[in-house]
């Protein structure tokens, strides 16, 4: 089994320290012509991965060219979203294909959710130690 890589939680609001600490995972994206480093929030409650609008543009996606609509819930239900696929690399693990709901919302973080980030990676949270571990799912 591939050895897990450990990452620290990040203090989003330094003055609040422990209270604002969240599991943001650094990863690298590659679309058809663009490569980009990003940081995604590991959100176990999110049913899907969500790509903020601005990040999608930076990756070279054109809204009008993405033809598969997807309906989100909660605050995101108010805005349209479309399916995009990306190659993503975490640490030195082999790259994987991730599907995202690319939303027109701009102020949310990049969300890594159940479909399909948590289908591709096993994650252990050690909140008491402010670290989490990630490893690719075992391949059959």
């Amino acid at each position, binding site marked *: 089994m591939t050895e897990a890589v450990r990452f620290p939680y990040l203090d989003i*609001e330094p*003055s*609040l320290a422990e209270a604002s600490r969240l599991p943001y995972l650094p990863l690298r994206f590659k679309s058809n012509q663009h490569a980009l480093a990003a940081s995604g929030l590991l*959100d176990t*409650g*999110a*049913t*899907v*991965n*969500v790509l903020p609008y601005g990040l999608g543009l930076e990756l070279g996606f054109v809204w009008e060219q993405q033809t*598969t609509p*997807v*309906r*989100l*819930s*909660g*605050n*995101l239900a108010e805005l349209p*979203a479309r*399916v995009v*696929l990306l190659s993503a690399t975490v640490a030195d693990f082999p790259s994987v*294909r991730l*599907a*995202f*709901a690319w939303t027109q*919302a701009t*102020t*949310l*973080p990049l*969300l890594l*959710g*159940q*479909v*399909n980030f948590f289908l591709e990676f096993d994650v252990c949270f050690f909140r008491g130690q402010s670290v989490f571990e990630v490893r690719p799912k075992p391949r059959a």
Partner: protein
Amino acid sequence: MSLTELVSAVQALPHADKLRLMQALVVELARDEGIPLLSDVKAYPIWTPYDAFDAASTLLKALNADNAGA
């Protein structure tokens, strides 16, 4: 009202009100220090798409089609 009178008044408060008073003082002190706190007058959006199972199904179909075409 003097501090002595105030302390007496506070001591006479029910337990729950003492806790509310303490909470209010902590918030006020934090504001004085410029420490940002969760505010009761500000809206905090929750972006997490809970139970968006149709969306999840759509993403999985797109991934399967992508795999089939690879």
